[in-house]
């Protein structure tokens, strides 16, 4: 058991994929990498595993430089997105594979495989071949194969994204509770932000070339360092409004939609913005827009008159898309509300929670 350190690792194929990526995952930490597909998340795992050769940089496991150590001597376990189960071997033999590799004695092998299989509740499937079991069972088998290995580092590549919702939930719970996973350094890759927020001790949001931001769920959600991060955290996606700053006396307003809508900048944010350029993007999370009933108090919020465009009731929540002054705003509401297209409404915007991103590169202007 050991910590994992990546020092300025670089890897490219036809294009650069990882550009001087540095990261430390502590022993016992569950680190989730989230990002859009094709961004290099799997490449990151393959570099840690040693399946890819780094173009530059170093990988350290427990303080030892393993950059030039081949994967079969790294004590790293990885599940593949495709599961990569050996089709000609039974579930038992698939799980036992790492133990056979190190020539464990028969009794120990059977005991350990049995333990893991019971833990993952696949002990009744041990005689089956991979093509005879379901997707969720395949996933558990793949997980079992990594668990018996008792490695220093766990790498999990989209382990549950191809499963249906119910099993996904069940396995997600299992990831929370699996002692084996929680003892060592784990990197878990997913494209699903909810999975990331729910599972990760820390989360890294991967953008082009590397990690855009690393932090706890609260940090990356509430204090995204860039528009990219903000955009990939949260469903429905954050409202992005291209604005220009306009000073009005000692107040500052961000003007969008050709000047027809202006958003007040909360006093707490003014200092940061005065140093910024005139142009910026205002980010408003849908949950920070409330639909105010007739006559309700502003209560510190900015009131905007708008018109309903679309309303979707999604069971637990409702998603409202409203239009004001040529700007579309998405708001999160109660699912029980009733809105007709074209209906005029009042929106209350929690200006305290606005996010401001610079025009060049989308850095969060709060720093």
């Amino acid at each position, binding site marked *: 058991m050991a910590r994992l350190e990546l020092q300025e690792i670089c890897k490219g194929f036809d294009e650069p994929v990882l550009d001087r990526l540095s990261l430390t995952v502590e022993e016992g930490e569950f680190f989730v990498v989230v990002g859009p597909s094709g961004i290099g998340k799997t490449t990151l795992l393959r570099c840690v595993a040693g399946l890819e*050769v780094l173009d530059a940089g170093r990988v350290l496991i427990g303080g030892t430089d393993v950059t030039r150590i081949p994967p079969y001597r790294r004590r790293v376990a990885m599940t593949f997105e495709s599961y990569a189960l050996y089709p000609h071997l039974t579930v038992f033999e698939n799980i036992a594979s790492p133990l056979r590799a190190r020539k464990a004695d028969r009794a120990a092998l059977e005991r350990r495989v049995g333990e893991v299989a019971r833990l993952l509740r696949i002990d009744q499937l041990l005689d089956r071949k991979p093509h005879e079991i379901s997707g969720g069972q395949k996933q558990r088998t793949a997980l079992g194969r990594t668990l018996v290995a008792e490695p220093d580092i766990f790498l999990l590549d989209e382990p549950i994204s191809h499963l249906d919702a119910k099993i996904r939930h069940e396995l997600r719970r299992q990831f929370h509770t699996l002692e084996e996973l929680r003892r060592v350094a784990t990197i878990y890759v997913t494209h699903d932000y909810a999975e990331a927020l729910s599972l990760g001790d820390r989360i890294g949001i991967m953008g082009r070339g590397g990690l855009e931001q690393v932090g706890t769920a609260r940090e990356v959600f509430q204090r995204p360092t860039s528009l990219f991060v903000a955009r990939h955290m949260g469903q429905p996606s954050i409202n992005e409004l291209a604005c220009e700053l306009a000073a009005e006396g000692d107040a500052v307003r961000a003007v969008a939609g050709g000047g027809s809508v202006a958003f007040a900048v909360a006093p707490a944010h003014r200092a940061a913005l005065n140093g910024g350029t005139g142009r910026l993007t205002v980010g408003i999370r849908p949950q920070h827009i409330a639909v105010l009933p007739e006559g309700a108090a502003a209560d510190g919020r900015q009131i905007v008159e708008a018109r309903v465009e679309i309303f979707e009731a999604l069971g637990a929540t409702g998603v409202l898309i409203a239009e004001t002054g040529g700007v579309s705003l998405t708001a999160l509401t109660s699912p029980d509300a009733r809105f007709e297209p074209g209906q005029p409404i009042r929106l209350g915007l929690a200006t305290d929670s606005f996010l401001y991103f610079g025009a060049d590169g989308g850095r969060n202007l709060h720093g």
Partner: protein
Amino acid sequence: MSVDQLPLPAAALDDAGRAAAGPYPDWFSKRRRGRSLIVNPLVPAVMVGLPVLVIIAIVIYPTVWMFYHAFHDTNMMSLFTRNWQAVGWDNFALVLSSDRFADSVLHLLRYLLFGACLQVLLGTALAQILYEVVQSNALRIVLLIVMVLPMMLPPSIVGVLWKFLLQADNGAFNHLLIKLGMLAPTDRIEWLDADLALWSLIIADVWQWTALPLLIVYSGRVSLPPAIYEAARVDGASRWLVLRRITLPMLKEIIAIAFIIRFMDAYKFVDKVYVMTAGGPAQRSELPVFIAFQKGIREFQVGEAAAYAIIIFVVAAILITLFLQYLKRVLKAQGIA
């Protein structure tokens, strides 16, 4: 400047968060530098190198040897005295100006047209019939095995067998035709005579090798997805239309590959010529490859034989290049290569 025209920060990143391909970082190169952790690069080199070495020893070296002697007056005597003279293009001139060579080329063309092409046509038709007409799966397999049996015989034995069957007087084939009423009882077809010898060769070859395209096309047909055919049936397409618009287009590549394989084999192997007709009578069933063997091995006119071999080799090289290009395309489309 109105706010509308402001460049949005969002526009700098596409959905995957990629910025427009900017200048590459200094460590980046399109050529991979890092040495694999999995395998020492020497190992693959040796693994591929072994067969390449074998090929150099048993194919390249002999071919170069032939090229060399194609430009010399080498024969049995000069080989033993190691005393041969360069003669420039004389051997090629001799070969290309000879009627024997010209005739053999015409024979070859007929052999390929009626041999290789006919085999592919028949094989495709039989595969289709077997799949469409024969309903019982077990019967299909039995028929397939029966039809493939000739392929399992050595070509030389096939030659012997057909020579035996096609004897004019008491050959079984003539008498079978008599029995079936297709030949008058007193008539005899002189199958191995000058006029028919080449045709007899073709018949024997068709008998043996039609099974190859049959087997390949049949397997290709079996592996076509049934969903397409169900859709066509729902649309009420006739069998002929289905064959022409669905089956044949989808089997096009497979049929072409079967043709290529048959074509090259027919071009290069001459076992049957040797055994059945020995090129005769009166050199009427000779193929270029056969003459090259004859000149080289029987008459020991090595220089002339080499000229034959080189001409054959060059034509083959052109054909093979074209065929392999095609094979590459097919395999690329399948995602294999």
